[in-house]
């Protein structure tokens, strides 16, 4: 639309009254607003923040938290080391070393010898989850992810599988069971960091 188009509606800034231009009444009105908030929190307990860690926040069912590596019925990692998740990862935080699968695993050619995710670099976008053809990697509802060192935040295969063990009952694998009903309940999970 051109600047001189007849249908173009021009908005005029509201004309300031004398009180507006003098500032002080407006300042007083502003002070009243902040004063109400200060009074509300100080004397009427109106703070809106969650007092973590005493009160734990339960995230929504679609929350993307810590990763887990899913296991199949025989307890083996479902991952087939196809590298699709590592390729899809925009933060390059997934590091997989694939190896030929043992002969006793006839259903696949490869398995991950090591599977490491740097949780500090991860941006929790869920692209790995989307990319995985066998639903081996999933993001759980765990959000309590703090550590005392950088090393502690690098999750290897054992740790990722243990996250699966810890969250299996609370969050069934997304594609092997029917999706949870409309009431999609979530529950509080323990931190994966011991």
């Amino acid at each position, binding site marked *: 639309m051109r600047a001189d188009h007849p249908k173009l509606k021009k908005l005029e800034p509201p004309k300031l009254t004398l009180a507006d231009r003098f500032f002080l009444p407006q*300042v007083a009105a502003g*002070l009243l607003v*902040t004063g109400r908030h*200060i009074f*509300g*929190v100080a004397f009427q307990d*109106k703070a*809106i*923040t969650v*007092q973590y860690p005493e009160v734990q926040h339960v995230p929504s069912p679609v929350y993307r938290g810590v990763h887990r590596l899913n296991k199949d019925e025989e307890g083996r990692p479902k991952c087939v080391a196809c590298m699709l998740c590592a390729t899809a990862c925009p933060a390059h935080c997934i590091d997989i070393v694939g190896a030929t699968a043992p002969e006793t695993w006839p259903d696949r050619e490869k398995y991950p010898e090591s599977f490491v995710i740097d949780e500090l670099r991860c941006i929790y976008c869920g692209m790995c989850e989307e990319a995985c053809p066998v639903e081996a990697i999933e993001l759980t509802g765990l959000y309590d992810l703090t550590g005392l060192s950088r090393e502690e935040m690098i999750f290897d295969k054992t740790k990722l599988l243990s996250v699966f063990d810890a969250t299996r009952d609370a969050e069934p694998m997304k594609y092997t069971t029917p999706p949870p009903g409309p009431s999609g309940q979530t529950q509080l999970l323990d931190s994966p960091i011991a």
Partner: protein
Amino acid sequence: MLLVIGIVLKILIVVAISQGTVAYLILVERKVAAYAQDRIGPNRAGSEFGIPFALLQPLADGAKMLLKEDVVPKYVTKPLYILAPWIAITAAMIGFAVVPFGPVGPDQIINFQIAPNVNIGILYVFAVGSLAVYGVILAGWASNNKYAFIGALRSSAQLISYEMPLGMSILGMVLIAGSLDLSTIVDWQDRHVWGVFVQPLGFILFFVSAFAETNRLPFDLPESEQELVGGFHTEYSAMKFGMFFLGEYLHVITVSYLTVILFFGGWDLPYFLDAEQTGLISAIVKVGVLLIKVGLVILFIMWIRWTLPRFRYDQLMDLAWKSMIPLALVNLVATAAIVQLIRTYWV
């Protein structure tokens, strides 16, 4: 000899108390900030030892300031870089010398003032207070960093601009009381009426320029984290930054004292306290009254901080040069005329 010991003791007590007060004011400030934003704020430090309200938070803050890595960038002009925070904090502290924090007079047992009866008291406070601009500009210059330098230039322009309405706004009160000595001004208010009632315009001008002088919001352009990544103290860390911070807070305390002393009657409480009471108990009550008033002013300054957004730089300059200085002049001339008329015809 006894006098010297007394003065040294007084200096030590005032410095210690003011530093401790600053530490706890930072806690109060954080609490007020949190409340204004519907948060709770610091409430944990000390809870392990059964100390409520995070009263150990200032200790934790102080320890952090002292123990943090003190980074001195390679490209700074080292002597000036180190000198700047010292100037900032010294300028803020020596202003306290003439601020009466309780009743002062020849018939008092204790004179609650480090240097009593300085008859140019208020001039001294302003002279010393404006030295703070040296700290700011040296910090900005010595940092050898564009952001720091721009921040320093902006803040020195601001500090100098607001010096004028600040100085002129109190002249009305000085004319009425007939003295530059702060305790005489309080005495006048004690005998007549609080300054804010005879000089309402002077009070508003003084209070607004005091905000600018102490670099508090809405005039905190010297820091302006968003545009200047911290302004003049961008390159300062650990205790050097802490000294700027302490200096700034001491300024807030000084300004609050001046506000109370010039416009809210100092230690005066109408119908309860007056200048004739000289005993020790009444002196302590007066100190308490003054402290409560100062505390309320400081709380109000914190409250303002979370109410008003920061000025744009040209608006800031406009306010000083186009509104406040003319208004201060008008106020000064009008007061002078009225005082002269009263002196001529009624007294």
